[in-house]
């Protein structure tokens, strides 16, 4: 136990400043009212869905939970069921084999909900494009609020995407 406590004290706090939202990532107008966003903003629950990604974006989503980015410190956490979620975080070109699972997960997430698509493939199909096996971009299959580009996007960009989805439209105009 002594060694563990010593290591924790020696490590100190590594968490860095939270990035600001980036309106350039938004692809539809904010659909939710400010009151709802305020409630979400206090404690957002995210359900992650890999809809056919190469596992590159997943690496960075894992990293968002490390001590440097500490997403959970913002009251935002990943949950195990869409029933508990306010937001879906979706990666990958949507493979045709994942259409059913992705749409079911979307349907199972209670309204009001947000969808953030992560990565170049989620944005436009990326290198995999559209084919007999791939539906391409996520918005071909479910509605998307915010897209974070990058191959893979950095943890900072992923956090920005999540925070952008939580920002009210009127805040941006102000």
């Amino acid at each position, binding site marked *: 136990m002594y060694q*563990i406590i010593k290591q924790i004290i020696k490590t100190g706090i590594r968490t860095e400043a939270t990035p600001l939202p980036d309106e350039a990532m938004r692809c539809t107008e904010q659909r939710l009212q400010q009151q709802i966003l305020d409630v979400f903003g206090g404690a957002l629950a995210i359900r992650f869905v890999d809809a056919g990604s190469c596992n590159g974006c997943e690496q960075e989503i*894992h990293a968002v939970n490390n001590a440097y980015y500490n997403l959970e410190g913002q009251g935002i956490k990943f949950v195990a069921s869409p029933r508990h979620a306010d937001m879906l975080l979706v990666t990958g070109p949507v493979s045709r084999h994942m259409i*059913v699972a992705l749409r079911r*997960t979307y*349907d199972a997430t209670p309204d009001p909900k947000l969808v953030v698509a992560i990565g170049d493939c989620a944005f436009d199909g990326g290198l995999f494009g559209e084919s007999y*096996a791939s539906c391409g971009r996520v918005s071909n299959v479910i509605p998307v609020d915010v897209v974070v580009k990058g191959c893979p996007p950095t943890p900072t960009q992923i956090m920005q995407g999540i925070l952008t989805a939580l920002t009210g439209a009127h805040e941006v105009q102000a």
Partner: protein
Amino acid sequence: MPITHPGLQLTKLPGALPVWQATIAHDDLRPVCQNVADGGGRLLALWGSDQRATQFGFALHVVLLNEAGMVCLHLPLSAEQPVYPDISSIFPVANRMQRAAYDLLGIYASEARDHRKWLRHASWHSGSFPLRKDFADTPPFSLEALEAKSGKSAKAKRAKLGTKQMDAGVAVSAETAASQPELDDYPFVQVEGQGVHEIPVGPVHAGIIEPGHFRFSIVGEKVLRLEQRFGYTHKGIEKRFENMSLERGAKLAGRVSGDSTVAYAWGYAMAAESIADVTPPDYALWLRGLFLERERIANHLGDLGYLGNDVAFSFGFAQFWILKEQVLRNNAALFGHRYLMDKIIPGGVTVGLAESGKQTLLEECSLLEGEARRLRSIYEEHAAVQDRFIGAGCVAPALASRLGLCGLAGRASSQSWDMRAQFPCPPYDKLDVQMATHHNGDVAARVIVRFDELFESLRLQREIITNLVGGDLLLQFPAHLPPDGFGIGVVEGWRGEVMVAIHTDAKGNLARVHPHDPSWQNWPVLEHAIMGNVVPDFPLINKSFNLSYSGQDL
């Protein structure tokens, strides 16, 4: 020469890898495979190609590996009846590869015991084969078309769904189901008996993981049987390679499995360089070695953190992921990408290492070494952690050998195969890689092997940096490869042997590229590792293997 067989003419492929190729007759396939298996050899990969444009009909390609090297066997198959003798009775690991080869190309393993589909779900029909050159591409996906189609056949589907088990673990009303496309109808093996029940898990998993389906048959908490169902991330990678430029293909190869991007990019480059018969500059080869070891270090650190997390020791996650983040940040600062994507291309590498960068990496080595040693002693002295690790998910060496367990997981079950040590290509020929092995085959053994490999990789990184003298990064590589060429590249990625095979057509374009992930070998072994364990230990055991879905779904 790795094998001898009457009438078998082996020719060596150019390059540093000990690989030979031969065209083989139908009746010789099984005896040659048996011969290799009896000598302790393994099946590395199996795939098919459509050769109707150039020569005979189709072809089956099998890569076998033994202590003397690798042999790629090409078996011509007729266009009308593309049938080959089953080899899954010799190498059980061939089962899923043979089924995938049928799903994608329509070549059939006669007398195989399992002919269920593998990569195909319901998005293309059983009679059409995507990797055939005359495959008519399906129209782009449209939600409207899907809804219109399901509107018409909603009634029929509703009836069908009534008897079907829900895959996603989410109950779905008949109304929503009616707006869904055809479901995968896969015949799982049922376990019967008093008190036996099933737990379906996935394809959408509880954590941040790739999609796949696990069907557990259990009694109480104890797992009697696990059956996996994959193919959910099948996004047509192999079809996508066809007619891609060599340059763009390198990018795609680096995205077969994002966590092994360096290994795939190197494998692809190695295959292309073998076909063109060129050797990249020394400096580039040393840098490739550096990149591969950095990929191993980052992944091992991440896994060691998650293995702590999975036994409710979140301290381990916090600590190891701080270390991993430092490796990734150094990658970004020195090489321009956190995971080193697109840094290896045919002909060399795209980025060098400045003198100041060497200093950064040497400091990183010292830091990681000190911290990881401290954390290792904390893991080893923590009774609760060791209680969960020891004995969980055990794969005995005899079973590992029979099923062809490879890579890191294989080495934790006494399967001493490591490409870097056995067939060292430059720069490994000057590095004397020490293979880490263990004989217990449980989660604890896989943790120990990860720690040992981490320290070995740090040693290699040091060694590479001190030996690194500047030079050319890249040689002039032809835009087109020689016509009708064939080459393979095999690289020991952090998970195991990653292989990429390239076939070129009459114009030297990519006709067929087959990337092979070690997960093909290791997933079926996980079904055995979990037997007799309790359900709550599955996440831990699964993580201790940490296999790729995308790499095997393609």
